[in-house]
């Protein structure tokens, strides 16, 4: 328990070198070691998706990955996706469409949704609904989340992003 392992993580474009317990979850490394508290924890069983980040471009649940497993990976968290001054189109779409209420599931939801559009830039409503199956929201009934993702997809086609 006391032995630590050295891991290197590139998080939001910045290189970090950390000495971590082998059992440390990636989400705790991000939150407690790097102070990136935008990534949330909502369950113990990988059901809720509040902890979703991008690892080497793929949406992953950071509560289900050990920090040591992410050694050498490039991680993007919600803080790296966009800022208040320079929002990512998915963040903008969630704001425009009232795609959030309490905001707790939102970072994970936005990370999953942006990865979904990267895989499938023009999804149907059905595809969006199935694509977000791994992220739970208790406030919105998903109605405006789905609307946000479809809106982001439509807008990005004009921008070509």
């Amino acid at each position: 328990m006391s032995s630590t392992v050295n891991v290197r993580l590139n998080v939001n474009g910045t290189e970090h070198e950390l000495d971590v317990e082998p059992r440390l979850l990636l989400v705790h490394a991000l939150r407690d070691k790097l102070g990136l508290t935008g990534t949330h924890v909502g369950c113990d069983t990988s059901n809720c998706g509040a902890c979703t980040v991008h690892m080497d471009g793929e949406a992953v649940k950071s509560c289900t990955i050990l920090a040591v497993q992410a050694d050498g990976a490039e991680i993007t968290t919600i803080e790296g996706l966009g800022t208040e001054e320079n929002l990512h189109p998915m963040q903008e779409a969630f704001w425009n469409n009232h795609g959030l209420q309490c905001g707790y599931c939102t970072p994970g939801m936005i990370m999953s949704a942006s990865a979904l559009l990267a895989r499938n830039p023009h999804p149907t409503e059905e595809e969006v609904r199935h694509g977000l199956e791994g992220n739970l929201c208790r406030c919105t009934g998903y109605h405006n989340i789905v609307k946000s993702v479809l809106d982001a997809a439509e807008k990005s086609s004009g921008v070509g992003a």
Partner: protein
Amino acid sequence: MSATGQAPAGHVGRALRRKEDPRLITGRGSYVDDINLVGQLWAAWVRSSEAHAKIVSIDTSAAKARKGVHAVYTHADLDMEAGLPMAWVPPGVEVKTPPHWVLADGEVKHVGDPVALIIGSDRYAVVDAMQDVIVEYDPLPVVTDPEKALEPGSPLVHESLGTNKVCDWSLGGGDLEAGFAEADVIVERRVVNHRIAGAAIEPRGVLAEYRGGKLTVWSSTQVPHFLRLFLAMLLGISEERVRVIAPEVGGAFGSKLQIYAEEVGCAWASRKLGRPVKWIETRSEGMMVTHHGRDQIDYVRVGAKRDGTITAWHTKIIADLGAYQMLLTPMIPPLSAFVMCGVYKTPAVHTDVVNVMTNKFPTDAIRGAGRPEATHLIEVVMEQLATELGMDSLELRRKNFIPPFSNGHETPIGIAYDSGNYDAALDKMLEHIDPAAVRREAEGLRSRGVYRGIGFSTYTEICGNAPSRIVGPGGFGLQGGGWESATVRVHASGSATLYTGTSPHGQGHETGFAQIVADRLGIDPSQVEVIHGDTQTGPFGLDTYGSRSLAVGGEAAARTANKVAAKARAIVAHQLEADPDDIELHDGKFSVRGSPDKGMTLAEVAGAAYVPENLPEGMEPGLDEQSFYDPENFVFPFGAHACVVDVDVETGKVEVVRYVAVDDCGPAINPLLIDGQVHGGITHGLGQALFEQIHYNDDGQLVTGTFVDYALPTAAELPSYELDRTETPSPVNSLGVKGVGEAGTIASSAAVTNAVIDALRPLGVNYINMPLTPMRIWEAINQGQGASPEGGPHS
């Protein structure tokens, strides 16, 4: 006040994007677990694995010896004179209330009952130490069924009380006996409204710091003001030295309307150790020890004449309260009785509540709190009655609707509704969905093995807690009412801060309340900062629950802004040598009527107020006002919902095909926020009806203890909703508004249940209780086989 008569123009009514969102969509929100203090320790709770047992011994020595552990406490260490509070008691009856300690005293009463509190250096260390605490239990008999708990000889949850019955309580009016005597038809149903969880996605969490004689507690709570009061009382700290902050709160749905053991225990431990103490709930803990809701068995008996006129309605509620009574526990089932008239002019309505204890975690308020249970049974039984009478269920409803009213309708049970137009809501719903067309589609689909059904729910509910004169000692005899406070502080440069006593957790008050204030002061909502959830910054408040924030807190904000505007007009009139009554707010300026160019902006007024060189004689400097608003009555939103489902009769799976909701919560402050509340509300009711259940087995073990077993609806299981509104102003407040946070939940479980029953009727299934899981539906179909005029599913 003259400002009240001035029609606010501008931002109210507009679908403004939320002011809250930029920080939340970029991960810059600050929830309890995002806050850390220097010297902070962590807490973990060793919890009972038994549903009912004597604690023979607790050995904490190995845990205490473990590296990183600072302390391990059991009940014997607690120097607290009282346990967790129960604050809302059904009036006029004896209520049996067991003690409820922060750590169990000698016996455990449900799985998860805390037996030891571990304090250590980090979140992993305290969890490691949990396995070192050895608790020896001597199991006692368990009761989990509330009807069995009432039988003689049942195991007793609390032996010392001599019974599992907490209390009987009744509310009614009209001549029930005469009503049933006149009835041509009587329908009786046993309606089970099963136990559910609030399941906010942010688990609960507490960070407590006792330092320099002052206690500061950050908690994921809906009720920071209540929490401060009870922490002060339980810990013996004078209230002015206790500060509670509800930072960003990640959803609550009633489940954080509570005074929890973990909040009191962490504060206590922080004082004991002189270090900040933090606890963050795991989801498995949350399912076990964050209060549950519903759990009623309702025996419904309704009488009607052949033409559909309802003559009498009786309900007996057997409510399973679990093992202890928490903040509002015993008063939640009685809230069902308050709305048991529904939208109907039934002359005799009577409800008998029996509150019962079992070896489960306590129930308390979960989204709707008593009103979803009432609406579910009313609306499901209405469709049962329609079938019995051979009438169309919407015709039956219309026949019994209370006719439109704009300023008061007395129900037989002593509750006066504020305003309603139930026909209009139903008419509007029928503009969106044609039941006859759905039924024609259903005919066609059935030949292909798809069973489509349509169901409805027309509801009203009681919210806007709470008018003191109605609920208090002069009325129903409850403890206190539910006024709300607001302070509006205009800054020297002309922007404003609103301090509200409400405590939102996702509803969007920072936007909606800013719209209300901005219009009254002639500034932009972006210039109004709304501060909430911190007992140190504003006046005492009564927090957020029961769809009260806008109708009570929003009205308080409006009234306070009107006071500020009145003072502004007096200052402007003085400076411009005009009559204050001639000053009007126009295009962001307080100007003289008829001379719009002659006027002052709020910034200019604030300058004059804070540099008081030329104020009216006797006027105090400053531009800062406060109000406490106690409403005259509750408010009663209403609406009409329709649900269409397809049932796969091979698997029993239900697919919600369409959901149409027309809701009336008075004039919209921000339609975007209303729609959002309705979307989430509908989903909570659909979730209960189709997927969710807190299930204990006969041994009192929680079977649905994680999100793997407790099935929250996902995006893939739901359709997009079709919403519309009617706007019937409430006469109770100047905004005309009613609450909307719970309305969707209150309406939707009945609509979907009725739709499923409608789909299954050709298979001989005439009634089925929630949760409408595939297994339960499959069983109902297969039991119904043969009774159906069309034969079974395979014919």
